[in-house]
């Protein structure tokens, strides 16, 4: 009886330690940036440049914003017509270097109100930011295989994820699920954030 209880407790202990280890390893700074929007994520605004509609990506971005919002009660990004919004989205053609379908950049506002570009390394280590721009290169999006609703949504969801302080899931220790929005480089059909995407978002911002 004593032996059985000890054995059960031992197994339970191993399972708990294993769970804690994997949780710790998967939510480290390789995948979540310490830096974030200075004001938090509960009342962010986003602005879609007219180019987003011209290139037919309005619904994709709206879908991605909505699904990130639905993943945590502490995250809320709402559409704004104000060009001074926290997140600004642009789509162009051959506006990024060869090989880039999308890019997210973070800025702080200096004392003159000018947006100053921040190094992602600084954001990894905790630097706060005030503005984010998201740019999509439509020509390269197509050339790199981000075509069809699901794959375009993955691209838009990925870039918005960076604005919410998510980093690449293929960074060591890598996650295996390439369908995750934050797993870059894979053109998988991912119309919704994965369980890894959601768990990382909640780890960062709360449930």
């Amino acid at each position: 009886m004593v032996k059985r209880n000890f054995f059960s407790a031992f197994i339970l202990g191993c399972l708990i330690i294993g769970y804690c280890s994997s949780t710790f390893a998967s939510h480290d700074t390789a995948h979540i940036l310490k830096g974030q929007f200075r004001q938090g994520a509960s009342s962010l605004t986003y602005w879609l440049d007219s180019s987003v509609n011209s290139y037919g990506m309005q619904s994709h971005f709206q879908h991605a914003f909505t699904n990130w919002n639905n993943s945590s009660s502490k995250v809320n990004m709402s559409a704004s017509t104000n060009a001074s919004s926290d997140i600004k989205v642009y789509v162009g053609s051959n506006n990024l270097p060869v090989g880039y379908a999308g890019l997210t950049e973070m800025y702080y506002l200096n004392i003159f109100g000018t947006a100053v570009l921040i190094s992602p390394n600084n954001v990894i280590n905790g630097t706060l930011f005030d503005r984010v721009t998201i740019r999509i290169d439509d020509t390269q999006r197509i050339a790199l295989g981000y075509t069809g609703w699901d794959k375009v949504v993955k691209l838009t969801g990925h870039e918005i994820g960076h604005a919410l302080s998510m980093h690449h899931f293929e960074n060591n220790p890598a996650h295996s699920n390439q369908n995750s929005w934050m797993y870059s480089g894979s053109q998988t059909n991912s119309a919704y954030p994965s369980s890894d995407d959601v768990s990382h978002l909640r780890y960062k911002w709360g449930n």
Partner: protein
Amino acid sequence: MKNNKRMYGLVIILSIVIVAYSVADLNRVKTIHLESGMMKTYENYEERMEGSDLVVTAQLIGKPENILTPFDGFPDGYHLSTIKIVNVIKGDPKLENTEIEIREPYYIMENGLEPGITEVYYGHYTKLQSDSTYVLFLGWVEAWNQYGISSAHQGKFNIDQMDKAEEDMQRKDKGTTNLKEDIFSKLPIEKLN
């Protein structure tokens, strides 16, 4: 008399500030690597060749030109660089021993009222160095009517180990290091000389 002393003191302090700012402005270089994006990455030589329009060994010629292309008040740009093609590994062999202009994915901007400049690189890219030879994987962009380095740090590999900046950056990126090893193990030796 007292006012004159105060005036001289103020002038001296102001002069020190101006000199200090000028020195800082000349010497301060901030570096930013833009890593938050969706960049096509390659696992091996075959994929890297497949994803390129032109693959060459080449050297940088002259001084690259910094071209700024801001969008909606936000900074952006590239460098226009002239390379001399030594060997063509994929593409038109007639390009050997010719010079072409390519786009490198980095730009340099002034810091406004803050002293110094900022060098902004896409990904883990490091700029081409003179007197070094490289394998370059290039993509053709019709709209630019020119080639650009394809996938930043995965489109440029130093052959002669003279580019220490590239070596340091690649040491931090296991995927690119593995890719480089695979490329160099499979490229025809005669093309690397």
